[in-house]
């Protein structure tokens, strides 16, 4: 059996870490008895279950996935590396930045400017983005969003910056 899958190690360790953290936090809550359970009872059970799964994933060493892949006749050689560090940074960075920008800007700047900013940042997640089409798209979507959400659906969102 091939072990083309290399994600089992970080996944299993993450499960263990998350389970341990959850159990540690939950240890502050009253456990109670089985008849009258306290708020800490179920969290400990769930954490133990997650811990067990983490152990099993580490024990299986990726064979749980490799077996499925082999069944489906996938060529293990075409398996992409577990984490392609550089191909992904740009989209992740730009998309997450645009979401955070939305959160920061929507209250002070209003929908029109915020949408413009979000689209402008978001477009650069794409490797082949160019400035002029990006500006046009941002402008168009900004106008579209204001029309759709505020005029048609009448959401309670301010359109323009508030100067107070």
């Amino acid at each position: 059996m091939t072990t083309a899958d290399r994600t089992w190690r970080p996944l299993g360790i993450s499960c263990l870490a998350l389970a341990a953290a959850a159990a540690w936090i939950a240890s502050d809550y009253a456990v109670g008895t089985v008849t009258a359970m306290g708020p800490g009872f179920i969290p400990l059970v769930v954490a133990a279950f997650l811990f067990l799964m983490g152990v099993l994933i580490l024990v299986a060493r990726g064979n749980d996935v490799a077996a499925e892949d082999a069944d489906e006749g996938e060529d293990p050689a075409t398996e992409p590396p577990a984490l392609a560090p550089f191909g992904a940074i740009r989209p992740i960075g730009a998309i997450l930045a645009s979401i955070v920008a939305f959160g920061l800007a929507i209250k002070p700047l209003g929908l029109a400017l915020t949408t413009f900013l979000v689209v402008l940042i978001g477009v650069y997640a794409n490797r082949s983005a160019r400035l002029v089409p990006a500006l046009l798209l941002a402008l168009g979507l900004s106008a579209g969003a204001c029309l759709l959400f505020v005029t048609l659906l009448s959401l309670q969102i301010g359109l323009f910056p508030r100067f107070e």
Partner: protein
Amino acid sequence: MFDQSLLAGLALGFQVAVDPTNILFCFLGCLIGTLIGVLPGLGPTATIAILLPMTSALSPVAGLITLAGIYYGAQYGGSTTSILLRLPGEASSVVTVLDGHAMTRRGRGGAALAIAAWGSFFAGTVGTLFIALFAPLLAVLVLKFGAAEYFVLMALGLVASVVLAQGSVLRALAMIAIGLLFGLVGTDANSGQYRFTFGSYELLNGLPFVPLVVGLFGIADILIALEQARDAEASQAGKIGSLWPTREETKRAAPAVARGTLIGLFLGLLPGGGALMSSFVAYSVEKRVSDKEGTFGKGDPAGVAAPESANNAGAQTSFLPLLTLGLPSNAVMALMTGAMLIHGIVPGPRIMTNQPNLFWGLIASMWIGNLMLLVINLPLVGIWVQMLKIRYSVLYPIILVVSLVGIYSVDYSTFDVFLTAAFGLLGYGMNKWKCEPAPLVLAFVLGPMMEQYFRRAMLVARGDLAIFVERPISLTLLLITAALLAGIAAPHVRSFRRKAFAE
């Protein structure tokens, strides 16, 4: 007497469903569903997640009608691109490519589209009747359920969705554990203790549902698509030809439609089933039953009719466990549960008695929706093919803006927006580590209910776990759960999973 209540129910349903507002939203849902069905890379799960907040402004009936329309509408749209472009718009239309596109190459694309549409319509009609017939029966049975039965039923739902879904069982179980953990965040209903809130005021009511699903499905999808630099090339559509199947084609397709519908009806009911598995199983069964002369894969109308009828029937009947048991059987149904909870409706057997408008209205709207889809799809097929020219580089900023405004509009909370970014990142990581988001969302929805039922059952039984085996219904459900778990290791289940998802 039973028949009368059924007729009265359906009459009430149609009365609700033909209300101009509801008709409009049913139409909108079907339209959006067809659109995303046509567009590859944008599936019903992500779309329903993104549009979920928008529907909270509507009445519960209109909101659910819209979301349901998106789900079954996507099954129609997905077949169009499969047949004409050899490009399955939806996972559930993957097998339709084989014979559908072969028919297009022979100049019978129009006939294939018509067979798919009429087959889906037939399946949708039967599915609607099936729900109307069996939902009242099931709901009566469920009223006998106590806390123990509910707990075991939900555990069964979770386990079954793992066994029957795609991918590694271990990882799906781990995702269930994480989903349950997420479900625990917030104030404990019994003691008032804050759990896993990290001193945050916003988390006292628990993790919000909409940022979770939009992050895991919508944002994560965008990240993955951009990393792979996926940009659907404008492909050349095959000639559509006459929309009327010949007599031989009809004769070949009709029994396949009936068999596909039957398979879809039952597979749709299973947790983890629904449209996707129905179409795969229906194709392989049809191939075994009617591929006498080796015509499958070369443009056999039966190879189009069976999976397309099955995926539509499956899409319909997967609503049955939700409406009667309150048990979401797949990710889309988990989203529907979320939509109901946003409106303050608890899914389950009491919907039918407490909210007959909602229950029967939704069922009747499904039949009307299927009728609309026939109109939307066949004459307008040319327009849908044009939609494929939209490039992903334009599409994803639109998705991004709609998602963000939608999340923000639920509570006007920027905290929800930041959470979405975090869950988007989590969804991306899960994809890299080959973990499916659906079990996590299912567990997140069911977890808090399961905890309540479990604690109540223990209270009633004075901490004696034997309550779960002493009550007959609970014991039966427990045995089914155990059998499913045991089946994971058994070779024939493995091969069934393999066959169902082989492509």
